[in-house]
């Protein structure tokens, strides 16, 4: 498939098709109707009189619906096509399709309209291959519906296809005989239900509270979502577009998991990562806190519920650990993959604590913080008891699921992301630097919660002592003397993995950097080796493994930069933070406001436009959250007690910005800022009821 696939979705039910709306096997771009990590349609093709159709246009109206305007292929020579076909499709847990055919001819026409349907019931981890399934498939026609099914033991999936009664069903699809007079229109509707069945034959969703199969994210829901979020007014017109794009995409990324069906938390990315990911959901919730704080509440609640409680080597679970990834498909169910859930990430646990405190700072929601006290204490115990693999009181990781576990359990989770300057890879036990920053921040923030909410001053003092000690040790043990920056990681023998990387920016965000070392860190971040002109590279140019198009070894990640900008603000480097914001937000203009997961690390001078890293997922949650966090950093928004402080430092290309109705413990608040060359002042800010 050469053209861009068309994707629509509702939660974790989604359809990926070509620009004719057809679904068929394609090794390069998997297509189909998917739900709960299973493909329910692998063939869904429309033909008229035995001929496939030609795409004239696609209108993807909303994230949950699309219209395909089609004509018979043979008529491409005749621009005044006599027959028009409109295929209107939407997803609301089920897939619905309305076919409309209009005869513009002076003569009547007789048409055979055919929809071919089939399903391979592939697991999401199998979609790129033609797989041999371990269970058995079946097809039957029952009560006017075509039923495609798959069984493996009690694991039972069905695709129920219901056309209107004029259709003729066979085991491979649906046929309509249509006769249309001049100017006549024919319309039919098909409902396709992906069903996850229990042993009793009912759909699992019917049996769970809070989730009904008719629950939808409708137009009204989207409107309400947009109305609740703050409004942005600015002299930089494209920034308004980027902001709107982010809000709509965040709405699309909301996902109600089976284990907490009444909540919507951000999934990691569309469409292949519409699932719970600890790290991605937490970081996206942090980015979007000033705008849509309900995402953070849902994330904290769900990750707390699913917190690890036992030792499990296959899932890499330990008591107190926050999960990495949860999947519902066949490979998870039969323990061929560990995602039930999988706990292979070393950062989601400290980040959970960071989010809990930041959420409280914004919302003042004492109840949630009080209700999660036990989860938070268990997370803190995990940091001390289970994360210290090397006996040196640093957080480290080493996988113990050697078959299907992850070698790198930090956000840079590809195999070659952690390396020495000369390109060597360290041994399997690794304590990457940003993990220590997160642990430091987690303890400092938990200390505040212990003192203010949990009423445990002794615990607060202990946490602060531990954090202070960690900071002191870290600034000695990780410092690369001859480069004047922090090592990317420590090995088990104490060796410093000495490549220069973007991870040092996360250290600023966490506050673990000694005052005496901040200036050199900032200088490195803004140096030509790390800063490309669009953003900070994951790995500095000149390092052994540097590759401007390597996934975690030279590309620029928008989300990474948003946290680096937050870190620069934390240490008072406003102008530098504004430069980062400007580069990333200018790059968004090349993608119609939708930042990709990553783009190439080429110098801006060289390519003049940001070269997108090719990935299957768009939008990606933490790229979607990036413009929101950058708005926060350029306005200098900080919750201080019951007030919102505003300390703007706008990029030089922005005349003025107003962000209206910022929600928080203060009610609603408006922040305004004007850029005046290099001296930047707030115009006026005001509270609203």
């Amino acid at each position, binding site marked *: 498939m050469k053209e861009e696939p068309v994707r629509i979705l509702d939660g974790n039910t989604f359809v990926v098709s070509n620009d004719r709306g057809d679904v068929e096997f394609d090794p390069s771009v998997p297509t189909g109707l998917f739900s709960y990590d299973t493909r329910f349609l692998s063939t869904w093709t429309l033909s008229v009189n035995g001929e496939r159709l030609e795409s004239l246009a696609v209108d993807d109206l909303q994230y949950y619906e699309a219209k395909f305007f089609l004509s018979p292929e043979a008529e491409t020579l005749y621009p005044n096509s006599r027959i028009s076909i409109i295929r209107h499709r939407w997803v609301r847990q089920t897939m619905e399709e309305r076919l409309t055919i209009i005869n513009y001819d002076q003569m009547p026409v007789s048409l055979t309209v055919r929809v071919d349907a089939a399903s391979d019931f592939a697991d999401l981890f199998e979609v790129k291959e033609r797989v041999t399934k371990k269970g058995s498939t079946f097809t039957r026609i029952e009560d006017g519906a075509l039923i495609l099914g798959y069984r493996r*033991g*009690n*694991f*039972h999936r069905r695709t129920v296809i219901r056309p209107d009664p004029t259709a003729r069903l066979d085991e491979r699809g649906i046929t309509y005989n249509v006769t249309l007079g001049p100017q006549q229109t024919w319309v039919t509707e098909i409902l396709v239900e992906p069903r996850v*069945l*229990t*042993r*009793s034959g009912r759909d*699992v969703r019917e*049996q*769970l*509270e809070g989730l009904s199969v008719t629950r939808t994210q409708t137009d009204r829901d989207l409107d309400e979502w947009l109305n609740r979020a703050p409004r942005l007014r600015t002299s930089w017109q494209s920034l308004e577009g980027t902001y709107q794009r982010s809000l709509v995409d965040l709405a699309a990324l909301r996902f109600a998991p*089976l*284990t*907490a*069906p009444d909540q919507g938390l951000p999934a990691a990315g569309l469409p292949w990562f519409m699932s719970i990911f600890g790290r991605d959901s937490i970081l996206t919730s942090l980015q979007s806190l000033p705008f849509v704080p309900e995402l953070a509440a849902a994330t904290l609640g769900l990750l707390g*519920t*699913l917190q690890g*409680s*036992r*030792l*499990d*080597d*296959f899932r890499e*679970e*330990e008591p107190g650990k926050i999960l990495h990834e949860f999947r*519902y498909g066949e490979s*998870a*169910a*039969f*323990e061929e993959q560990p995602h*039930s*859930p999988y706990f292979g990430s070393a950062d989601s646990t400290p980040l959970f604590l960071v989010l809990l405190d930041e959420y409280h700072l914004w919302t003042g929601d004492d109840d949630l913080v009080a*209700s*999660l*006290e*036990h*989860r938070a204490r*268990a997370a803190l115990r995990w940091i001390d008891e*289970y994360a210290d*693999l*090397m*006996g*040196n*009181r*640093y957080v480290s990781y*080493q996988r*113990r699921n050697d078959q299907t576990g992850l070698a790198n359990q930090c956000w840079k989770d590809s195999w070659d992301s952690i390396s020495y300057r000369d390109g060597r890879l360290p041994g399997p*036990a690794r*304590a990457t630097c940003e993990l220590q920053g997160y642990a430091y921040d987690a303890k400092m923030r938990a200390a505040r919660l212990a003192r203010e909410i949990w009423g445990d001053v002794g615990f607060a003092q202990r946490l602060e002592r531990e954090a202070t000690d960690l900071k002191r*040790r870290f600034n000695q*043990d990780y410092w690369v003397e001859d480069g004047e920056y922090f090592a990317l990681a*420590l090995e*088990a*023998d*104490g060796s410093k993995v000495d490549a220069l990387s973007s991870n040092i920016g996360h250290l600023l965000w966490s506050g673990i950097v000694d005052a005496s070392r901040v200036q050199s860190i900032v200088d490195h971040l803004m140096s030509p080796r790390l800063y490309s002109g669009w953003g900070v590279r994951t790995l500095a140019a000149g390092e052994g493994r540097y590759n401007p198009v390597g996934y975690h070894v030279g590309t620029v990640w928008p989300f990474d930069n948003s946290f680096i900008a937050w870190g620069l603000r934390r240490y008072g480097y406003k102008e530098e933070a504004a430069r980062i914001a400007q580069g990333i937000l200018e790059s968004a203009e090349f993608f119609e406001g939708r930042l990709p997961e990553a783009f190439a690390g080429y110098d801006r001078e060289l390519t003049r436009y940001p070269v997108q890293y090719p990935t299957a997922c768009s939008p990606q949650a933490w790229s979607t959250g990036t413009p929101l966090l950058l708005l926060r950093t350029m306005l200098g928004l900080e919750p201080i007690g019951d007030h919102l402080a505003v300390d703007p430092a706008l990029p030089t290309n922005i005349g003025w910005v107003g962000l209206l109705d910022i929600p928080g413990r203060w009610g609603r608040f408006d922040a305004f800022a004007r850029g005046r060359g290099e001296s930047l002042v707030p115009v006026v800010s005001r509270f609203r009821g």
Partner: protein
Amino acid sequence: MRQCAQPPENQPDPTAMLFERISHAGRADALAEVDGTVRFDLNLGDRIDSWLLIVQRGQISVTHGGGDADCVVELDKDLFDRMATGHANAMTALLRADMMVTGDVKLLVLLERLLPGPAKAHGPRRTVGSRGAG
């Protein structure tokens, strides 16, 4: 309705032993914030063996027998025996539909904390004998 009956036969019944242990402990800090009732209906082929767990802020009482519950879990007794000894996983049993849940599934997810982990788990690999960095 019987209070925590002993297994009827001489060989140890892993399910009864697990519920004994839970009942004897009386409290689980892992469920400190949890309120709710869960009933396990264990299928023995010719009859259903029910266990009712009532959780109030971490205090747990166990009843061998039926009763209304916020969450009802149905599965074969054999499978629950294996869960009770760390030889089967509750979440994957749910995903395979070997176990069926009606009502508030979140309660089952929380109560899974009372089940033992895999019997052969080693836990994190600690790198011993390194010279350390601290």
